[in-house]
């Protein structure tokens, strides 16, 4: 699971997913990898999905799982949804429970002290 991790000047943790598919085959390792990445400081956690051109309900379930892991005081937000991914969120109305950005915010390299 390839992730690219950075921070915004405002202190958000940005995790940009480098995979093209979020399906049942990768759902578990995706959840693990995001949990590990989110051990770094930063809030909210913004998940970049612009490379993901396919996501099924297993992928959606994994994202919901990550949101619950992070807990209520560290929101999970989404950015850069491709048309297919957007459609799954819309059909399930799960686009109402996430803040969704059109694109990833500008970031700087991760502060190692973070």
């Amino acid at each position, binding site marked *: 699971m390839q992730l690219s991790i950075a921070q915004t000047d405002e202190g958000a943790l940005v995790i940009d997913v480098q995979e093209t*598919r979020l*399906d*049942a*085959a*990768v759902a578990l390792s995706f959840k693990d990898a995001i949990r590990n990445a989110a051990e770094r400081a930063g809030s909210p956690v913004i998940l970049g999905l612009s490379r993901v051109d*396919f996501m*099924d*309900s*297993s992928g*959606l*379930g*994994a994202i*919901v*799982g990550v*949101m*619950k892991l992070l807990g209520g005081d560290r929101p999970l937000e989404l950015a850069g949804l491709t*048309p*297919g991914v957007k*459609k*799954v969120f819309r*059909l*399930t*109305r*799960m686009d*109402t*429970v996430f803040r969704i950005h059109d694109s990833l915010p500008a970031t700087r390299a991760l502060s190692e002290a973070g």
Partner: protein
Amino acid sequence: MTDSKDITVDLVLRCESSVEDVCVMLTRMEQLLDKADVPSAQRQDAALVMAEALTNIARHGNDAQRGEITCRVSIAQDGLECRITDHGPAFDPSGLGLASPPPEALAEGGYGWFLIRRLTTGLQYQRRDGQNILCFRVPGTPVELPVSVQMS
């Protein structure tokens, strides 16, 4: 494509009933649908519905022994006719996916059959010869007519 309207293409893919194999097969199916000039929105809908059905089969369909899953897609002018067969136990899909889990429940599953129903027409389940047979159609986007039609 005008010159291919009289050619029909069926893609028949088979794999073992495991989550990994099913996902590889779905990727391959999408590539072939792309090459067969299926419009991308229709291809995405079909890929999603097949993913939901096939993942269910691999997850819920057979605890002990693996069986073969067959996925046939017939490319028609106005949509994709799909037929999925597997050797899992019989089940009753009539009550599945009639609604999606409420968003505020933050459910991590249970969306599959809802998406299948939402994106297909003519959904039909049959049990025959020890196999589950699921048939459905993924409709195409309506073809827009050109402003002027050339007669010849």
